[in-house]
């Protein structure tokens, strides 16, 4: 097995960063349970998946999420934080 290129769509970038994903997209302000957007918003969902897949062909910094804003999503949410022990 030589490995498979992956890209993560995360709504919890701080939590995801702990696993150092090779490529990741954080759609800013999306809530947990809405990784691609809200129900029925197919155009937005397509943009998010398009942008995530496009990261496969870009020079991203492994281990760090790329943040993109999607104003059409509407109300924004604070992402979950890593709990400090």
């Amino acid at each position: 097995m030589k490995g498979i290129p992956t890209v993560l769509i995360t709504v919890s970038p701080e939590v995801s960063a702990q696993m150092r994903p090779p490529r990741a997209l954080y759609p800013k302000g999306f809530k947990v349970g809405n990784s691609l957007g809200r129900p029925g918003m197919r155009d937005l969902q397509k943009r998010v998946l398009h942008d995530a897949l496009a990261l496969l062909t870009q020079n991203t910094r492994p281990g760090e999420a790329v943040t993109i804003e999607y104003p059409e999503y509407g109300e924004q949410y604070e992402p979950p934080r890593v709990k400090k022990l």
Partner: protein
Amino acid sequence: MTISRKCVPFTPFERELTKSKIAIVTAGGVHLKDQEPFNIADELGDLGYREIPEDVDSSDLVVTHHHYDHRDADEDINVVFPIDVLRDLNSDGFVGGVAKKHIGYMGYTMQLKAMYEGTAREIANDIDRNSRADAVVLTGG
């Protein structure tokens, strides 16, 4: 093969998206209605995963997961498992195809070592051998 916990396991993407088949792997607890639901009664979490075929009707997919609010996914599974969205991007010619197999698992566990060294590796091997995917999109809840 031992997975390092210190470095980023980066695999270069050396193809063109327009010629690449894409698989989806979600931690959002997605599975077919007629598959065994994830065991949410086990406080340690369910380490299993479910295979989802390329020709799945998205209305046949459900979520079993009790650590996020999945009411939106119940209404439109594409918010966590974008299979119809991927088909749209394939129709548009942005990607080269939808992979033969996709995976759903419940991304909550108190058995981190077993998830990291067991389930995750099994999923990677399954995708590598059986999905014919050139790249994978990962989603959470």
